[in-house]
């Protein structure tokens, strides 16, 4: 890795003292302090030490990105500390090891800090019995709705039941019944019978989203999660509570009864709805996208994403997606054609185009690689290039004012200026005066900008690539169907300069091809440049060429990306 690119956004923290603990008899050194949910350094807890020791401690209420509550009692472990003699010095066994005094009472691993020489036992019969006991208590009043519960398949209660549950229940009493299918807000359904009262959702919405909307009412076994009376649970982050709810109590209305999770293929991807670039997992089955869920990346989105981005996927499977390569005949009729024909014709026309007669409008929703290929075309023809910005209201947590995923990439590669769209007027004027005769548009309806339908009519050649039909695609001389980001691979550069890659989840409809593929063909046809037939090769070439990306490699991006100076 070069020195321009780092995986960390912050400078390296000062070295933290390490202390020795034993987890199930295995000694290891763990930092004395570790980040808590806010990233503040606090004394390391047992559960963090166990995680470093690769020992799984079952837990419900603990979440690394939430304040600790310690109420589920699933994480109980036994432990011992070095015994102290009357002189306050450690007692030494005859074999020279310090004598360990086993604590008579267990401790919750999620909230108990470690101390030097501590021994944590997670596999003793006592611990197993405590886990079984807690799990049984959680299950006795649980409705066992699994056949109709959207959580089934990714439910912690199911998972730990396999590990610590009994095959039969000895509970013969009537169960506690609570409200079912409660409408908590526009995007959330609550089933109180399934709730195990871990308070994760309450802590999230209070401490992370800053909207103190949820709470528990009633006592004892009748504890019931609810929204504050008269309050609607509708902040822009509500669906994160569905992710962190360890059971199926909070479910998404959007995903409700849509598909069982075990059928979903999970693909690592990036949210495209704003410039933050939250890391996501795309859940798809049989070429249909069913949901987005956040993927942990501490440099970008921690474990969260906003509801706006999460639900912005429905257009991917729309029936009117562009799926045919089309060209306009000399009579002005639109006809279906093939990629080879269209790309060869476009190349011929471009080759004949005089310097400065071509303009390119790219979309800030395109990938770095596509920008770079467009930039190659632009350099060849001395073309004007720009993009169009989309802005909305941002918030303090994740949602950025910039609603495009890759304006930073477009700027770093030289497609647009810091002030995006500033050259659109120049392009419009050049068309008006007849200087620009060929316009290449990617993923934008330019008729909504300064390039209205009349101006487009003045062009000799209008080459358009898009995903959905619009006024610009209707007027295209060549229409090249492209891909949604879930249908291809590539990288985006987020607002903070983090270059992150995304993978392909579903097939594109019909003849649609990833833009980088046909752009590569076009660049090859026009300039003869070759050598990047794979996305990996293309990215690596680009990284060598674009100063901001120097030193990056596709493989080096990893799953969570690399930050470059912007």
């Amino acid at each position, binding site marked *: 890795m070069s020195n321009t690119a780092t995986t960390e956004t912050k400078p390296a923290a000062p070295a933290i003292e390490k202390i020795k603990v034993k987890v199930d008899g295995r000694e290891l050194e763990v930092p004395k302090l570790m980040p808590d949910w806010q990233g503040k350094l606090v004394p390391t807890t047992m559960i963090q030490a166990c995680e470093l020791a690769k020992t799984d401690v079952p837990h419900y209420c603990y979440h690394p990105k939430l304040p600790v509550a310690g109420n589920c009692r699933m994480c109980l472990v036994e432990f011992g500390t070095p015994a102290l003699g009357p002189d306050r010095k450690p007692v030494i066994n005859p074999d020279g090891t310090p004598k360990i005094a086993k604590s008579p009472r267990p401790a919750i691993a999620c909230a108990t800090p470690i101390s030097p020489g501590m021994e944590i036992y997670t596999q003793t019969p006592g611990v197993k019995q405590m886990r079984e006991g807690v799990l049984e208590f959680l299950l006795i009043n649980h*409705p066992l709705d*699994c*056949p*109709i519960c959207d959580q*089934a398949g990714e439910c912690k209660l199911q998972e730990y039941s396999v590990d610590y549950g009994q095959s039969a229940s000895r509970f013969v009493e*009537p*169960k*506690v*019944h609570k409200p*079912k*299918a409660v409408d908590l807000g526009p995007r959330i359904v609550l089933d109180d019978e399934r709730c195990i009262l871990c308070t994760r959702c309450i802590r999230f919405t209070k401490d992370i989203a800053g909207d103190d909307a949820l709470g528990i009412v*009633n006592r*004892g076994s*009748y504890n*019931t999660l609810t929204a504050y009376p008269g309050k609607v649970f509708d902040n822009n982050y509500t669906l994160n509570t569905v992710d962190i709810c360890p059971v199926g109590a909070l479910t998404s*209305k*959007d*995903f*409700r*009864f*849509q*598909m*069982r999770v*075990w*059928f979903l293929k999970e693909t690592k991807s990036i949210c495209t709805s704003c410039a933050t670039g939250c890391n996501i997992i795309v859940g798809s089955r049989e070429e249909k996208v069913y949901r987005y869920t956040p993927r942990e990346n501490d440099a970008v989105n921690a474990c969260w994403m906003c509801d706006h981005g999460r639900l912005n996927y429905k257009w991917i499977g729309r029936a009117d997606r562009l799926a045919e390569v089309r060209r306009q005949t000399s009579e002005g009729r639109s006809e279906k054609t093939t990629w080879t024909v269209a790309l060869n014709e476009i190349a011929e026309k471009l080759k004949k185009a005089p310097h400065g007669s071509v303009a390119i409008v790219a979309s800030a929703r395109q990938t770095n690689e596509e920008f770079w290929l467009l930039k190659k075309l632009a350099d060849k023809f001395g073309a004007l290039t720009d993009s169009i910005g989309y802005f909305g209201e941002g918030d303090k947590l994740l949602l950025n004012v910039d609603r495009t995923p890759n304006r930073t990439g477009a700027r770093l590669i030289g497609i647009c200026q810091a002030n995006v769209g500033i050259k659109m007027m120049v392009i419009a004027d050049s068309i008006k005066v007849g200087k620009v005769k060929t316009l290449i548009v990617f993923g934008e309806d330019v008729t909504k900008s300064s390039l209205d339908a009349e101006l487009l009519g003045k062009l000799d050649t209008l080459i358009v690539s898009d995903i959905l039909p619009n006024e610009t695609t209707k007027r295209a001389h060549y229409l090249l169907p492209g891909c949604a980001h879930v249908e291809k691979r590539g990288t985006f550069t987020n607002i903070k300069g983090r270059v992150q890659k995304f993978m392909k989840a579903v097939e594109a409809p019909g003849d649609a091809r990833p833009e980088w593929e046909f752009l590569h063909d076009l660049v090859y046809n026009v300039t003869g440049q070759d050598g990047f037939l794979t996305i990996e090769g293309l990215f690596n070439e680009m990284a060598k060429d674009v100063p901001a990306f120097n030193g990056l490699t596709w493989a080096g991006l990893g799953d969570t990306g690399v930050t470059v100076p912007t």
Partner: protein
Amino acid sequence: MIVNRKPLTLAERLYLPAIVGGFRVTIRHALRSLFGGKTVTMEYPEQKWAVPPDYRGAPYLVKDQDGHTKCVSCQLCEFVCPPKAIKIIPPGPAGELADRPNAEKMPHEFEINFLRCIYCGLCQEVCPEEAIFLLKDYSLTGLSREEMVYGKEKLLALGGVHGGIQKWKHKLEEAKEQENFPVKV
């Protein structure tokens, strides 16, 4: 450990005794029906075969004693079915409610492709709702591929009624009973 094979004896090398042995049952029946006057074949389809009680025929959906759809669209059978004969379309958030009180969910569409089904019975075994059973039908025919894909209505009509524990109804009754317990909300 290496176990050396015993060399084959002459009888074994001739293969004939093994062949005769293999055909013993066949030959016995052939001789019996030729000369013993005892036929073991039947004039199908005029004559129908008496289906043994534990026979596994075609899987159909059943209704409960109140005439409600038992299937809740959990899609476990779809998951377990080895030849992928089952296709379920879940109701989705805006779909029709289950016709069973308190169950929330039932399939929007449920198809079994009987060209694929191998009558293995895994769907019946996995079903948590006792909603699908292998019944006695063994000769399903059709004139087209489409005809061999049975939809929800057809499967329910063919399956008939299968009573039993009405889990969801029981939950409803239990919820009402809660009112009579001294420790209250």
